């Protein structure tokens, strides 16, 4: 990636190019909207207004962004170690088990004990589900891409079995655990009502969003301010050289995967303890995979991931509002629009780079 960089000013590189790519993506998406017979400008307006035009919209955008930040950070930490962890989905799903076990079995304890324990359990369960593929990669040479995606399916099968046979109350049709009646993480709506007497619209946004901020700072600090972070980046950049530097790549691979899985596991905190207050079937809902796109788009940097996660949150929420307002634009259309954004901002990231470089070269001459 680094050697692809030309002689462009920084503001072009991190400002103009992403904006240009986003613009082109929206332009093509607009054409698709036009083809199915809707007004693209109106559609864009509904999307934007639905996402950031109201407190409710912001609530949903930030809620989605919380999930995507966790899974995006998870992918990025592994990526810095040269590992492509595509098992975020399974790690988050499995972590829900930890959150639910603590949340359901320790209901009698006060929240200052239960919540930290539940968060810790989520991290540990998520980390464990990534540790196994990490171990297999380091010690047995099983490729991480294959093992992590297989662990998504193993996790899914295990969770269906457990929810069906352990968590689901007898006679209840829905495949979910009973409700956590003890401690859970307060939503912004509840905080507004209880502490400030303000009625906020009902959104899934809860205090976990601050945990996401902490996770962002943690990852930045870990990668660029600690010895371990240096070792992770060294292994990612060149494992052979890392050995000469006295770093054991095997150990770093396993640790990096465990950290990655722990971060993905935090998503379960948001869903199980913050929003649903129960263990649901497939609660991860694809956020683990969106995390890959988020990490790529955010160039595996925590700040970039925050922006990319917000963008995806905006697309998710705006997309939902759009299919409400325009039944003709189905949810599959929304996926097309999201896919176009990923295509132009991720895969074709450097498509306009040579042209821009030429233009700027001319300007400077």
């Amino acid at each position, binding site marked *: 990636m680094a050697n692809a960089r030309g002689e462009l000013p920084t503001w072009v590189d991190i400002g103009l190019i992403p904006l240009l790519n986003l613009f082109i993506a929206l332009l093509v998406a607009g054409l698709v909207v036009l083809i199915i017979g809707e007004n693209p400008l109106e559609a864009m307006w509904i999307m934007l207004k639905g996402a950031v035009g109201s407190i409710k919209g912001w609530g949903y955008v930030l809620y989605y962004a919380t999930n995507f930040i966790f899974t995006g950070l998870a992918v990025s930490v592994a990526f810095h170690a040269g590992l492509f962890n595509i098992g975020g989905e399974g790690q988050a799903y499995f972590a829900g088990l930890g959150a639910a076990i603590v949340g359901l079995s320790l209901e009698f304890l006060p929240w200052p004990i239960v919540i930290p324990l539940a968060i810790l359990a989520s991290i540990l369960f998520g980390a464990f589900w990534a540790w196994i593929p990490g171990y297999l990669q380091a010690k047995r040479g099983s490729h991480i891409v294959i093992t992590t995606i297989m662990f998504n399916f193993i996790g899914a099968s295990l969770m*269906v079995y457990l929810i069906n046979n352990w968590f689901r109350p007898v006679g209840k049709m829905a495949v979910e655990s009973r409700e956590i009646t003890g401690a859970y993480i307060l939503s912004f709506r509840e905080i507004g009502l209880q502490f400030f007497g303000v009625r906020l619209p009902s959104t899934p946004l809860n205090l976990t969003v601050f945990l996401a901020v902490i996770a962002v700072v943690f990852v930045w600090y870990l990668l660029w301010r600690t010895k371990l972070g240096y070792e992770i980046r060294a292994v990612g950049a060149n494992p052979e050289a890392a050995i000469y530097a006295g770093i054991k790549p095997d150990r770093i691979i396993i640790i990096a995967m465990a950290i990655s899985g722990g971060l993905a596991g935090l998503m379960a905190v948001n*869903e199980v303890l913050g929003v649903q207050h129960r263990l649901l079937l497939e609660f991860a*809902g694809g956020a683990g995979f969106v995390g890959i796109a988020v990490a790529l788009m955010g160039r595996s940097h925590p700040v970039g991931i925050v922006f990319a996660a917000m963008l995806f949150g905006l697309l998710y929420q705006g997309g939902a509002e759009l*299919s409400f307002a325009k039944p003709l634009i189905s949810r599959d259309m929304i996926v097309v629009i999201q896919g176009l954004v990923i295509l132009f901002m991720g895969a074709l990231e450097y498509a306009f780079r040579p042209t821009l470089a030429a233009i700027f070269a001319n300007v400077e001459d």
Partner: protein
Amino acid sequence: MIKKLLATAALTAIMAVSAFAADDKPAIVFDIGGKFDKSFNESMFNGSEKFKAESGVAYGEFEIANEAQREQAIRNFADQGYSPIIAAGFAQAAAVEKVAKEYPDLKFAIVDMVVDLPNVQSIVFKEQEGSYLVGMLAGMASKSGTVGFVGGMDIPLIRRFGCGYAQGVKAVKADAKVIQNMTGDTGAAWNDPVKGGEITKGQMSQGADVVFAAAGGTGLGVLQAAADGGALSIGVDANQNHLHPGKVLTSMLKRVDVAVYNVMKSGKDGAFKPGIQALGLAEDGVGYAVDDNNKALITAEMAAAAEKAKTDIISGAIKVHDYMEDNKCPVE
């Protein structure tokens, strides 16, 4: 200029929203499978379309893409004053409960689950009864004495289908073997016709000559594989007899389309009633399909036995065990 443009856009948007706000227009929230799943959701979509065609009243609709959207969708319709709001599928129960409490003046309905509130109508089906009858037909039609069952995802609802089916088979052939398989453990299990076909071939290689699919879109692969391999199949939810004429023994009907149509119609006529509606054979909520495509497959003897069992189930002489009662099935 730009300001003016934005203002116009805003005005159109507001007008678009207010055009939607109308009282007593029904709305339906489909489950994750989507309204074109050739099964549960599509059946409800057909019911809604029928209502629209007959009454001329447009309805609001939304297809869920993730868990968080369940509540969002129902709440959005409630905000805009839609009533009754129909939630398709048991997974929507928590969301319906939450929103229905906040909007006591609006009417809600949920299919496949019970939500006990004064403004909610809960529609549940006795799938075990219909499955029992198709199980009897399968048992009588089978020459090998081995029949198959292909479920979608391994959830209680599907086990209820499988359990009723097995009881029906055993009722006519006590020594018959019922091979039961589930397609998978993720949502993809509802829409994987290739895997459904492979499972069917596997069951056929073990001797099954009638296979019942209760697996949404996956069932299409089951029906196809059975037709290709010379076995009989049984469709589900909608009448799927026409998919392979002469090769689909029958279909286990679950009339969600009628249920949705009735809710929408009762909402319009002001006849909406809250409470639980358990639709079984007696209410024609479930049943088996006989039409020109499968007439030749069902002998007079089979039809008579099924009709007798139907009468006995309605009268209570035959009791079909419901898997959901104790999470157990008396027969394998």
